[in-house]
């Protein structure tokens, strides 16, 4: 199904919002809670699916919604339709310091793999689904966990990244080693894997962990300089009461204290807990 063709403008430098201009009967979908303002004539409607034609029938929608919850989005998406006369605007704001990235899915081959919870808004018709990481090593230690988001469509989508973003087009065979957790989005043609840091001394004392994430072209990748959970844990660690909860009493559950960005936290933890 073709996505609506929308015009947009991004405002701001470090804490941005995108203003989307809709023609009559065009619509945009946004993550729950992301809307900043909208003009008179825009109709707001919350739907169970993501508005794409790929989800049909009640169970199809239910399954899709359930999968989306796993990717960090909510069960519902809100559709903003221009029911008025003439062009109307609706704006969506980035939820943490960083950059908003306009991604034209048609130029990227129709699909994009993103970090969990990276999606902000898009033209109606985009399909949001799970990209499940099948490589155990990459899932455990790559920094993105086992669950990533997949955006499919042929129109504009907006994802948000923390810190400053870098877009790199990898040539065929070109490899980039990336700090775990810094990947925002990539084309599905990119090989995403892990690589051992190389020396044990470096692994233990280097501060980068035991593995790198490796990205191997061809394809476009987007990297962020400051993943939000890293910023948050720094702030939390500097808080007056001293960071971190107590030791977990049991091995699986018990009291608080989940490791930030650690192995288990990366898989089970959400982006914004």
């Amino acid at each position: 199904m073709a996505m609506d063709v929308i015009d947009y403008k991004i405002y701001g430098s470090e804490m941005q919002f995108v203003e989307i201009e809709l023609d009559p009967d065009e619509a945009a979908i946004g993550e729950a809670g992301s809307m900043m303002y909208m003009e008179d004539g825009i109709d707001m409607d919350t739907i169970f699916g993501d508005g794409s034609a790929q989800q049909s029938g009640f169970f199809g929608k239910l399954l899709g919604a359930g999968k989306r919850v796993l990717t960090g989005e909510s069960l519902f998406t809100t559709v903003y339709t221009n029911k008025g006369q003439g062009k109307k605007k609706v704006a969506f704001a980035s939820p943490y310091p960083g950059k908003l990235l306009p991604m034209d899915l048609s130029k990227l081959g129709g699909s994009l793999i993103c970090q969990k919870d990276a999606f902000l808004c898009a033209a109606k018709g985009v399909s949001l689904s799970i990209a499940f990481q099948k490589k155990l090593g990459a899932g455990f230690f790559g920094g993105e966990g086992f669950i990533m988001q997949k955006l499919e469509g042929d129109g504009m989508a907006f994802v948000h990244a923390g810190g400053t973003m870098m877009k790199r087009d990898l040539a065929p065979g070109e490899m980039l080693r990336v700090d775990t957790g810094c990947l925002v989005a990539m084309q599905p043609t990119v090989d995403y894997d892990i690589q051992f840091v190389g020396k044990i001394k470096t692994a233990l004392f280097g501060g980068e962990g035991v593995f790198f994430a490796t990205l191997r072209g061809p394809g476009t990748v987007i990297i962020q300089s400051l993943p939000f959970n890293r910023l948050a844990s720094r702030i939390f660690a500097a808080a007056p009461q001293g960071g971190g909860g107590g030791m977990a009493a049991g091995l699986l559950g018990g009291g608080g204290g989940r490791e930030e960005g650690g192995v288990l936290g990366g898989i089970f933890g959400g982006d914004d807990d």
Partner: protein
Amino acid sequence: MSTLERLQGQAFGPGFHKSGTRIEFEVSDSGLYLVAEEEFDGKPRWSDLVVRRGGFNDAQVMLEWKGRAGSYALAVADPASVAALKARLKQSAPDKAGLKGTGNLGQGSGTRRWSNLMIWLTVLPVVLPLLLLGLVVWEHERIASWAVSHVPVSQERKLGETVFAQARAKLKLVDGPPAALVRELGARLTQGSAYAYEFHVAEDSTVNAFAMPGGFVVVHTGLLALADSAEEVAGVLAHEIQHVEKRHSLKAIAKNAGLMVTISMVFGDLGGLVSLGQDLIGLKFSRQHESEADAEGLKTLVAAGISPLGMRDFFRKMGEKEKLNLGWLSSHPASEERYAAIDAALKALPPAALQVAPLAHDYQKVKQSLPAPAKPADPAGGSK
């Protein structure tokens, strides 16, 4: 022009879009042919091509080669194109047809080893405690038996004495024909036992009987009132005697303690939920003990030459009395279930076991000498 089918792919490299250009291509016996508007080195031969699985989750097929201007890659994701490509590869370039994943390219063996090690280190602390819990629940009988085998009979007797002394204070023990009957039947059923039994009758209108470690057995008058023959009472006694012989109390202590320790070790302190789980599993153990006592009790009746039909009939009566039994919430299986189990076991016995002489006691006379039912007391015994 050849009639080779055109497949869909995404081309990367010098002259193509940085994020890939959608392109059609053909697969022939000599190599690839990319259908592009501009002339470029789009005809790599098989000897130049590397074909592998790649992309996210190795879901795409990548064909890579080095051309004059640089490195090129063709990514095939569309399922129809992938299938057609695989088929053509088998025909045209069989040595390339075995599509391998990227495992060997980006990752060295060092990475794979470290990765496997780390995965094990992560998964094991999660899996091992669960396995331990599973083991404790699965093999509870064997573990408890081993633990209990280290407790000598004399120690068990001392424990029973203490417990009985405490219980005795709350019980109103009666003597006379009912007690004599119970003692006689008990003696007949416990010949050759390691334990020195003591049989008592307590005045209590509830239908119950219980055994304590070391050989103390108490029968309520309410139970004697429900029975109609000495065989039925013998059935109940046989059951209680098995609780003592099989050391069920001790085992229950071992099992419940073991369970409690394991569950709190695995799950931490989750409060009510954990103790609920413990209780439910503990009750399951208890029900298994009860079933064991039923089955073994039946065997002792047969061995002592007493008709086991009495035991069965008694449970049928209990089943009729019982209105509601939530099996999984109670420490005993439902009486109906026990009746059915005993009935089935009886059918498996040789007929000679059932054709024994009836017991010589005049049960009706014994029944009449039971004290008149007082107001129902609490199950532990009479009121203080």
